[in-house]
Structures are given as C-alpha cells and as structure tokens.
C-alpha cells in the first residue's frame, strides 16, 4: 500500500472540492481538509487500503457533521424555494447557462445530503460503491439521493431560465 502522504497529496484536490460543496466557503473548506488529513493520518495504520478516496471523504463528512451539530443554530443551509412556472422548452437555453457557472451556484442551494450525492457521483464521477462508502449509506440510498438531487437542480435551473425570460419580456 502506498504511503499516507502520497495518497493524501493525490486526493487533496478532490477533498478540497467536496469540502467546498459541503461548507459552501473556501476558507472553511481548507480548514476542513486540514482536519480531515490529521484524522486520516492518525487512522492510516488501521485503514484496509480499499477506496482511499471514499475513506477520506467519509472522515471529512464525519468531521463536518460533528462541527455542524455543534453549530446547528447557525446552519448555512439555504432553504429550498419553489421554482416559478416556466414557458417554452427551458432546456434550449440551458447550455450557455451551464457554462456561465450558475450550475454550481444552484447546486449549492440544494440540501446537503442531495448536494453531496450529486457532487460525488456527477461532478467527481465516483462509482455508486465509492459514493456509498464515502457517505456511509447503502448504494440504494446513494441512487435515490442522486436522482432527487438532480431533479432539484434541474428545477432550479429551469427556474433561472424562466426568470431570464420574464426579464426579457418585461
């Protein structure tokens, strides 16, 4: 098995991006990765060597969940809003919007458990097995959270298109 440092260095960009989607804040993400690496280093001896990425993300999720439960009254979670009615085929205009970066902004507005599933499976391209290990849930739960998360994101993006159409028609 490779040494901890080489695995940690290789996984750092993924850990940082996932941390950013969890915390919604660049500084907090950096701190979270730092704490995760400390915990991972101390647990490296007991790690079985399978799915290092999932193992580290799971540690990170546990660290984050503990922090969040301490600060539950100050949660940064943004509540879901109802999307507005849409006109026309909203997906015709979507490609340009996706390129403009609004897709990540909208991803950050969906609840954390769904956001994490979409981040791991769609953005980071983890397999269901790896995502299940990272989230510490069964594969079926990963699937259902992914489908629901995609649906929420799709509705939010459709709402954006509708808003821009309303502005254009005003």
């Amino acid at each position, binding site marked *: 098995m490779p040494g901890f*440092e080489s695995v940690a260095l290789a996984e750092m960009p993924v850990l940082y991006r996932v941390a950013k989607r969890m915390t919604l804040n660049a500084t907090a993400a950096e701190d979270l990765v730092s704490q995760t690496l400390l915990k991972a280093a101390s647990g490296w001896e007991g790690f079985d060597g399978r799915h290092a990425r999932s193992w580290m993300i799971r540690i990170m999720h546990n660290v984050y969940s503990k922090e969040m439960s301490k600060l539950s009254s100050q949660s940064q979670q943004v509540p879901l809003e109802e999307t507005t009615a849409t006109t026309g085929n909203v997906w015709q205009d979507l490609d340009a919007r996706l390129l403009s970066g609004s897709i990540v902004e909208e991803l950050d507005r969906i609840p954390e458990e769904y956001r994490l599933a979409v981040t791991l499976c769609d953005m980071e391209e983890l397999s269901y097995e790896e995502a299940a290990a990272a989230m510490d849930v069964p594969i079926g739960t990963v699937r259902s959270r992914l489908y629901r998360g995609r649906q929420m994101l799709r509705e939010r993006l459709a709402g954006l298109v509708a808003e821009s159409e309303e502005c254009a028609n005003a």
Partner: protein
Amino acid sequence: MHSNQDKAEAPCRHMERMLQEAASNRSRGLVRWYTLAHAARCGRCGRFLASLRAMIAGLRSERATQTDEAAIERLAVRLK
C-alpha cells in the same frame, strides 16, 4: 415543486430510473439500448435525457474551476 411545464416535460414514469442511469453512462447492454431507443422515439424522455446530460456535463466542466491551486499548495505544505 413541479410547475405545469415541468409536469408536461416529465419523462414516462417507467423510464425515469433508466434515463437517470443512462444520463451518466452507468447503464449497460440491453437496458441501455432499450433506454436510448425509447428516448429517441419519445419526445418527453428524449428531452429529459438531454437535459440531464447537459446538466452532468456542466457539473463536470466546472470541476477545474472549483479547484483553488493556492489552497492545495497551502494544504500540501501543512501535510509535510
């Protein structure tokens, strides 16, 4: 919450799971063939699949912009 337009654009109920799997290239063989063949003939399912694919491609293309090289450097220094 579904708007009327979203309801109109929803895929065939029995296809949704297969379309979700096909969108991220996780389905294989006969199931994948059936899904794509259905989506090619059914407008609603075809648009649903196209929208999921566009969304997933958008997420993947954003991956590079979400990596802060300076932050990674700082973390790497702390690790050593």
